[in-house]
């Protein structure tokens, strides 16, 4: 269930942002620690650098440039993950204390496991029957809140068939920790038959 094992484009983008931020902050930390150690070893080595360079260069210009670069990258990247009006397959998810109910366009519902076709975008319309929960399948997409009276849509994309675990990501009461679920992605050709089998087994 790791965000670092992405199985779709949005999750891959999120994992990349994470790695770049980890490596970037590692480099900055190494640089600052290096300067710090140097200043310990050589008390006068940096005395010639004017304070202005540290304060304005290091304290203002450097973080502003880094943050602008991250923002310029993250904004379009976030936009690319949004659901669009392109007729994507759409399912419904309703959270409750403490579990998930999933509904399908042709009728029928499943508990705990959401069945989707692999290799195509799937929009999940997420709401809740009681308190605020959050829908999160780390390998497939970011997370989004399930809010009473409101429907939030999250786009999933599973590149390969498989079982992807999910977890409620907003504390929602005593059963929160056990409020896990899964997304089962089926071969697109086999999806309808697979879903029909699941619904039949559930007696629907």
């Amino acid at each position, binding site marked *: 269930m790791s965000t670092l094992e992405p199985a779709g484009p949005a999750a891959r983008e999120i994992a990349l942002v994470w790695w770049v931020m980890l490596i970037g902050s590692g480099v900055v930390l190494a640089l600052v620690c290096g300067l710090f150690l140097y200043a310990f070893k050589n008390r006068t080595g940096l005395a010639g650098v004017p304070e202005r360079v540290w304060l304005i260069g290091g304290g203002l210009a450097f973080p502003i440039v880094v943050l602008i670069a991250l923002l310029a990258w993250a*904004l379009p990247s976030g936009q690319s993950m*949004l659901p669009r009006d392109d007729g994507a397959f759409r399912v419904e998810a309703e959270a409750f204390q403490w579990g998930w109910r999933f509904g399908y366009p042709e009728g029928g519902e499943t508990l705990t496991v959401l069945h989707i076709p692999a290799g195509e975008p799937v929009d999940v*319309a997420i709401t809740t029957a009681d308190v605020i929960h959050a829908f999160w399948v780390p390998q497939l997409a970011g997370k989004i809140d399930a809010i009473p009276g409101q*429907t*939030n*849509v999250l786009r999933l994309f599973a590149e390969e068939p498989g079982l992807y675990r999910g977890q409620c990501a907003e504390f929602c009461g005593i059963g929160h920790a056990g409020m896990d679920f899964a997304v089962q992605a089926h071969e697109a050709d086999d999806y309808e038959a697979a879903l029909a089998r699941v619904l039949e087994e559930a007696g629907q």
Partner: protein
Amino acid sequence: MTDAIPSPARPVSGLHLIWLVAGFSVWASGFILLYGLHALGCRWGWEEAAFLGGISVNRAVLIGVYLAHIAAGAALWLPLHAAAKRWPGEGGVFLKSASVLLTVAAVVSTIWIGAPVLFLAACAG
């Protein structure tokens, strides 16, 4: 003519300190209004309602709030300078430069944080 001798002890009035927070008060108002109206606009279907020139009512409202706050921040310039002329002594000099810097920072920050209303998608799903 007792007031011909400047009194070094005359302090800057506490009320003048309002100029330190004026710029960022405008910034805060812009932030809260953009944040709240964005959410409410999406909820109330303003994104689907067309405004002039093909932009949505939602975007038009957000851009209007954005520009109004930039203008309000910039408009602090004249009254700030007029007020600062009457601030006495060293305290007055400090208060003036601090107020000017904070107001400029607030206007730049208002421009920066609201700029996404010009180009990002407002509502999803």
